[in-house]
């Protein structure tokens, strides 16, 4: 009871340069946000989760770097774009969230399931690779056991992997080549 309540915003946590970095990275219009909350009230994810789109915009504007880069709520957005369509100021909140996500990934904050999905593309060239049951099903449908994608062209998979290496994507998502 004697503990002093934590102030909602700590001045020493505000980092003006971080705001500039977000803007340069793709959130060009974040600073015209008027905090009306249309985004939050339109959000199908926020209705049932901790995701508060308006608050993310505010945290970005205040340059609360740690709160953005370590924010798991960023990953609750389904990228449905409803907020982007309805924002009266043209902030493009979905694009801001995608920018924040990329910055979080750069800072090494990627969720494990997402590392796994990225790993599947690196390994197989498909985020959802084929499984035994589907191979069988394809055969009964006369579609060919493997689709005419990277699954049927090993040299094409190599290309995909080379591109990934060249872009450093394997390192970014901590992929271990075996």
């Amino acid at each position, binding site marked *: 009871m004697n503990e002093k309540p934590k102030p909602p915003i700590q001045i020493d946590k505000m980092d003006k340069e971080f705001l500039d970095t977000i803007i340069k990275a793709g959130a060009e219009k974040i600073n015209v946000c008027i905090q009306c909350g249309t985004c939050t009230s339109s959000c199908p994810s926020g209705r049932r989760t901790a995701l508060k789109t308006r608050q993310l915009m505010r945290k970005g504007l205040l340059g609360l770097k740690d709160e953005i880069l370590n924010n798991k709520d960023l*990953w609750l957005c389904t*990228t449905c774009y409803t907020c982007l369509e309805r924002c009266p100021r043209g902030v493009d909140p979905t694009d801001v969230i995608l920018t924040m996500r990329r910055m979080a990934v750069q800072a090494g904050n990627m969720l494990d399931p997402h590392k796994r999905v990225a790993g599947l593309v690196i390994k197989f060239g498909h985020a959802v690779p084929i499984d035994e049951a589907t191979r069988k099903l394809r055969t009964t449908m006369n579609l060919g056991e493997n689709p005419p994608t990277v699954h049927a062209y090993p040299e*094409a998979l190599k290309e995909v992997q080379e591109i*990934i290496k060249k872009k450093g994507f394997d390192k970014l998502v901590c992929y271990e080549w075996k």
Partner: protein
Amino acid sequence: MDYALFLGCIIPNRYPGIELSIKKVAENMGFGLKDLPGASCCPAPGVFKSFDHATWLALAARNLVIAESLGADVVTMCNGCYSTLKETNKILKNDFGKRNEVNEVLKPFNKEFKGTINVKHLLEVLYNDIGLEKIKGMVKKPLNLKIAVHYGCHIVKPTKERENIKSAERPKFFDELVEVLGAKSISYKDKMMCCGAGGGVRAAYLDTALDMTREKLENAQEAGADCIVTPCAFCHLQLDRGQIEIRDRTGTSFNMPILHYVQLLGLALGLKPEELGLFNNAVPVDSVLKKIGT
């Protein structure tokens, strides 16, 4: 006219029935489809675009270049693939700096993005290239069904990247494509709401994704839908397999048949359910087949 069929991941690797359907439907309607040999994941917009923009762009460019070498416009049946390929195609057509960067990466594989083709969703091919009148004339079996159409998100949004879409709040083209087959597109609560799967939410927060799916299913059921029809393979998976996941978690069974639009179209064209892979869904579609008398 020939189109380059971009399969993506979900269709060939989970729902080959949708792949079979488009082949049969194209044959029946008289348009050609070419395979895209060696294509990969688009890669998925919600996740890959969220991880690294340059890798997303480069892998998508590789897929686009394969289509360019065939000289055919791309057709997709997944809103996610559509969004990635349409948006990267536009970026690379207009931003020469980005195009050069990508071409540098593709050069060792004798690939170069030239910007010679367009990316279309199957619904655009049907609505714009073929047209409602022509489709109407091809219907052999009008479908007496009450259908909850689920557009999904990325087929209409963001509208700043969708030159044919004026508003994402009440689009009509998909309803018209359903009604031209003799069915009724019913109105239901929050029709334009997301299925819940996108943006990496299905991968990281399955319960959250499924809770959105539950809401969609409830709304469609309350409105008396015989089935939900979607133009997107990922929504299809979420709405179909999601019902099994919801049942296993909560005990609630919706038994709501889910059809991809190409399968519904196939039925109206008089194709057999086996030719449309309709027996391979997680939730059986028997009630739909019974109602239309197949």
